[in-house]
């Protein structure tokens, strides 16, 4: 039923769209067919040809990119302005799995997403849906952050952090402090950890702070149970609006999402708790069924260019090419220095560890906080 509804909705919408869109897709002359299988900008015959092919398609479909997430609002605007390509941003608040669902349901229509930005587990479970592509700056990206063929490439990442309004609560140094009476009804987690990757990493962080490891998330669940029993855990999904209005004075979330709030609320501070450093990178991939294959590849080129990487950095995220850009002196140094300080070895759970922890969470989370 969902499929039918979504498809009829898509059909209705495309029917209203400008006729030139569908015309371009059907006349797969020259660049159109090549673009689907192109694995680098050379396959187009250079950047200019890629830009031209992308402009001919005219549109780029992106999905699940919230404007206030890692600066995506500005990135979309800048890309759109620079190349004169319309960016159709669907379901900005959707989760990673929704992106894959949408790609399946809209397959073959020109409303299907062209590119994905996915959390680790979803990304690695669906690699057969991606078109391999190596951006021009592919070699700058450290090996552990990319598939050797460019099927997926990490794009930006960060550390789990505690963001808090220093006007409303005392300074936070460690997670244990959040259990105190000053934080009654004040601590929120960005989403349900059985559903959202960011919240999941938040529980991993709590686990590591309490003697757990990437193999053992149980202490993290216990921590949130204690938080809940103390009346401190807020079962509210934090957003920019709840932070600004003061409803969620403490938010456990990625540092780049928390850092973005400081611009709007100067008293908002971000800490990566010492001894509980959890890192996570997102995964960028091109839909192998992309209705706008050239635009999708141009988007990737843009994201991994110095300009795109610095835009992520401006949103508080750590771009994957950061080290190479520091060496080359092309990074926005003031923004880079402003990132929250991190002490300790970061923990990056592997896919197997994530699966094991997810199974434990699925069985125990609702019991702990429901």
């Amino acid at each position, binding site marked *: 039923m969902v499929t039918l509804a979504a498809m009829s909705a898509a059909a209705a919408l495309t029917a209203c769209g400008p006729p030139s869109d569908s015309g371009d897709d059907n006349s797969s002359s020259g660049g159109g067919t090549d673009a689907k299988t192109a694995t680098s900008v050379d396959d187009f015959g250079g950047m200019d040809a890629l830009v031209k092919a992308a402009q001919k398609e005219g549109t780029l479909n992106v999905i699940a990119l919230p404007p206030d997430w890692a600066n995506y609002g500005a990135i979309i605007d800048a890309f759109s302005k620079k190349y004169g390509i319309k960016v159709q941003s669907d379901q900005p608040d959707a989760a990673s799995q929704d992106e894959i669902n949408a790609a399946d349901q809209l397959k073959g229509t020109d409303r299907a997403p062209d590119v994905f930005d996915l959390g680790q587990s979803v990304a690695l479970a669906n690699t057969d849906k991606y078109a391999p592509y190596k951006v021009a700056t592919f070699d700058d990206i450290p090996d552990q952050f990319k598939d050797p063929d460019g099927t997926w490439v990490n794009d930006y990442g960060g550390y789990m952090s505690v963001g808090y309004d220093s006007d409303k609560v005392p300074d936070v140094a460690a997670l244990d402090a959040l259990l105190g009476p000053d934080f009654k009804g004040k601590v929120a*987690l960005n989403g*349900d*950890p059985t*559903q959202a990757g960011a919240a999941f990493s938040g529980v991993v962080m709590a686990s590591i702070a309490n003697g757990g490891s990437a193999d053992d998330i149980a202490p993290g669940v216990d921590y949130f149970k204690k938080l809940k029993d103390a009346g401190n855990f807020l079962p509210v999904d934090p957003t920019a609006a709840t932070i600004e*209005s003061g409803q969620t004075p403490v938010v456990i979330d990625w540092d780049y999402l928390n850092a973005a709030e400081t611009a709007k609320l100067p008293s908002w501070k971000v800490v990566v708790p010492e001894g509980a450093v959890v890192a996570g990178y997102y995964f960028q991939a091109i839909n192998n069924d992309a209705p706008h294959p050239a635009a999708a590849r141009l988007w990737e080129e843009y994201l991994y260019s110095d300009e795109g990487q610095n835009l992520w950095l401006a949103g508080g995220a750590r771009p994957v090419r950061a080290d190479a850009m520091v060496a080359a002196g092309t990074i926005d140094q003031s923004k880079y220095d402003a990132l929250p300080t991190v002490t300790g070895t970061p923990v990056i759970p592997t896919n197997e560890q*994530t699966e094991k922890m997810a199974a434990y969470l*699925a069985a125990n989370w609702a019991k702990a906080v429901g």
Partner: protein
Amino acid sequence: MDAIAAASTTAPRARPRRTSVAPWLGLLPFLLYVTIFLVWPTLSVVSGAFRSEDGGFTLERVRALTDETALRALRQSLYLSFSSAALGAVLGALLAYLIVTAPPNSLMRRTVTAVCGVLAQFGGVTLAFAWLATLGFNGLLTNLFADVLGTSGTGSTWLYELPGLILVYTYFQIPLMVIVFMPALEGLRPQWREAAVNLGASTFQYWIKVALPLLRPAFLGSALLLFANAFAAYATAAALISQGSFITPLLIRTSLTSEVVLGQKGLGFALALQMVVVVAIVMTAYALMLRRTARWLR
């Protein structure tokens, strides 16, 4: 005259055939709609619940319903539906009685009936946000209570948990009860009361021996409808609850959209089948009750 005569001579033969086809033609759009949006999804849920990943028959998905998480969600769902249905039925029946005893054309009666018609359909995201703005953190009443009574402005999270859901569901259950229960109350003929009084019954005896037994099937039937209504509600809970997915509809969402626990589609099918079964049982009971009620309301 001639035309009528001509028509009347041909009519007896033509009419029976036309009446046998025309209603079916008229029903066609409805049947089509029901097939696409009710029959087909139900069949796909049933078949999906028994199909394994590679397409063969399996009981594995249905067996997952006995996992503690699924059982817990079912228990909480039943508890939520039962509580909100019981509250809604009792309060709604009282309100319906007050309305029925008012003069048929009074402003109060017309207003309350109209308002109930609107509020019974007032669910989902709008309702959830209305409650959040009133009783949530920084809600109107929360802040007022904090100012006047000195209660904590932030400390209480009950609205975001099961008690909150019961309260919010009751908000649309009461008007629904008024709407479905009022015809039964209106069916209580004054003559029955007069007859009872003539035979020497007190008001109390009339209610216990005549009115309540007459109303019982209608009351229970309406309560069952309320139960199914709450059991199947999704949007209100989805907008209000962001942690725990502790009722079945929310657990289905998690199984379909989670980016952490993957490959749960099978559980989603099984949970949906479970809901179909519960609602089918409740609605069968409702239909039986309705048949008993109908005897008195003719």
